[in-house]
């Protein structure tokens, strides 16, 4: 793995940095939890957590904020992976919160905003003091300014003008009662690093990330697969296309891209020449405005 001159590749360097962050939180925070959606970033984060504490079991639970709009195969993948690792799974359910009346469905059908209070309630209920998230700084302009350890007040809010200075790798995860820290072990990874690591370590991912023929509808240049959440509108043509997903968000909002990549190596080859950011290409929810992510983060979103 290592060369005689004691150098690491960029993936080994990123891996070492992430493992350090995961262990630091496990050592210092009373009750951490790892956010696991079954998406590729959280899969890599969970794999890094496995490595960080091996041969012991991962010493904290994982949590999924279930919007009720997930791709079924992603949920299957989630349950399988959690069982393999023997970790506790906490599910914070948006449909349950809607039924209980603590949040209300938005008219546009997006559950992006209403998953934030559901997340915050679960954090309070379980007394979680640190939350690992799989966000990367290369995803969005607002994320580029986020610390690895991101402090949140008792309402889960992010104040970009008042972040703790973060020096060297000496992280300050201290909180008062009710406050929490969001921790992003993958901060310095890019989309290509994630894929390179999945290939190098042969990490299993949901089949959605690889191309297959699907029935899709074209809405403003975005290709949505026809499924239980997306039905063709009157007169809307249904096309048969070979597509894959670059991100897996809610099944009613996440679009696929045309692709013939049926292996991870082919996905990497496609991404390397792709000229659209992954959120720009596939996420209807981020198209609202240039500052959509910043606004959601301030409210407590990841």
């Amino acid at each position, binding site marked *: *793995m*290592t060369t005689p*001159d*004691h150098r*690491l*590749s*960029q993936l080994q360097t990123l*891996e*070492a*940095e992430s*493992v*350090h962050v995961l*262990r*630091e939180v496990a*050592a210092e925070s009373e009750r951490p939890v790892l956010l696991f959606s079954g998406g590729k970033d959280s899969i890599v984060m969970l794999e890094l957590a496995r*490595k*960080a*504490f*091996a*041969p*012991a*079991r991962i010493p904290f639970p994982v949590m999924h904020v279930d919007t009720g709009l997930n791709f079924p195969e992603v949920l299957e993948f989630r349950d399988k992976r959690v069982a*393999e*690792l*023997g970790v506790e799974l906490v599910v914070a359910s948006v449909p349950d919160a809607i039924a209980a009346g603590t949040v209300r469905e938005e008219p546009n059908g997006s559950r992006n905003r209403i998953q934030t209070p559901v997340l915050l309630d679960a954090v309070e209920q379980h007394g979680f003091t640190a939350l690992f998230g799989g966000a990367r*700084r290369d995803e969005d*302009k607002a994320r*580029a*300014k986020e610390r690895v350890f991101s402090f949140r007040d008792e309402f889960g809010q992010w104040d*970009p*003008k008042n*972040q*703790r*200075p*973060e*020096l*060297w*790798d*000496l992280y*300050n995860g201290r*909180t008062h009662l009710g406050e929490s820290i969001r921790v992003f072990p993958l901060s*310095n990874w*890019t989309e*290509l690093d994630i*894929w*390179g690591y999945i*290939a190098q370590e042969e990490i299993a991912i949901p089949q959605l990330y690889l191309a297959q023929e699907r029935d899709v509808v074209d809405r403003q240049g975005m290709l949505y697969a026809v499924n239980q959440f997306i039905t063709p509108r009157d007169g809307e043509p249904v096309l048969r296309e070979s597509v894959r997903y670059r991100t897996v968000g809610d099944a009613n909002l996440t679009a696929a891209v045309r692709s013939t990549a049926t292996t991870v190596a*082919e996905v*990497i*080859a*496609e991404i*390397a*020449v*792709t*000229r659209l*950011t992954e959120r*720009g290409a596939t996420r209807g929810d981020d198209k609202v405005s*240039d*500052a959509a992510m*910043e606004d959601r983060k301030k409210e407590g979103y990841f």
Partner: protein
Amino acid sequence: MSALSQAAAEIATARKDILRIATAGSVDDGKSTLIGRLLYDSKAVFEDQYAAIERASRGDYVDLALLTDGLRAEREQGITIDVAYRYFTTPRRTFILADTPGHVQYTRNMVTGASTADLAIVLVDARKGMVEQSRRHAFLASLLRVPHLVVAVNKMDLVDWSEEVFEGIRDEFAAFATKLEVPDLTVVPISALQGDNVVTRSANMPWYEGTSLLHHLEHVHVASDRNLVDARFPVQYVIRPQVLGPDSAAFHDYRGYAGRVAAGVLRPGDEVQVLPSGLTTTIAAIDGPNGPLDAAFPPMSVTVRLADDLDVSRGDMICRPHNAPHVTQDLDAMVSWMADAPLVPRMRLAVKHTTRTVRAMVKDVQYRLDVNSLHRDTDATGLGLNDIGRVRFRTTQPLFVDDYHRNRVTGRFILIDESTNATVGAGMLTPAG
């Protein structure tokens, strides 16, 4: 796969090292444009991002500076609030760039950005030459011991590509740098707006014999910047599988000390000493992310197993018996202070050093440093926000320290205000006296 996509994939996944860069500049010296140029010309900018800034640009040029101004308040006020991190990659290297604002909270942000950097870029406007801020940025880079410093003399197009102007700035900077500890200084004439000497050599400045800025970033030698001599392993976390993982039945006796190698090279069979107990043993095995290793070195995260059953916990330090760090409760350090309320004698703070956190009291402030003139004000009674000075502390428990110039990992610490939990300062240990 097409030949093109195959080539692209190889570039994306090739085995490369990472160079961490900190940039600093004043408000109008074109730092955002330079970064935009590096991102755009190295193809780290995506079509949708480019389309967004093309729409937002006014004037003839696409304003590449808009690529880096992320927050709404920044676009509204035309300022940069906080350190932002950018990523780009070339066939030779991967780059992580900490983009630090030049004006608001400049010291705090510059110190933050420079703390992890292998190389710092200081931008100078060719029309103005060296200004107070250029000196300050260079000084902060040297205080943080960033091993490589690049001075980019920008806006050469506005001084008619003049060799004389460039040489004047270069010589002035070199003279100033002799007062600092700058191991490696490179000066490059550029035009970020037009791209000259950023990625490719400029045809407008045939008199310049050096390489382009990007070429320098790709080739500067950083492997030897690490300390591979003094073995230091701060114990971060003890792994004892009480609840076994699914495939760990064979590990019921396992006890491993997890952490990041701070310096030196550790190997199985090495005789080691554990601080603070002072007991010695040998390394039985080193487990890496993918199994046993025959050597561990910075910045690897590993798990060390020892031959003897010693009482070792988080905050302890594993080193070599005849090459141990100083064990001390007295700290002498250069401190960068980052809180509104001043640092004053008798103040109580928490000190986080490697994986050990202790309480400390400020004994005295020996001097406050004027970062522009480098003058030492020995009459100072405290340090205000963004001040830098030499401070002595007494800690409640011993720390295992080295001088910062010898070891950037075991020579640094942060200061935490225990009432607010805020990080209020950064410290770099200096030899006592």
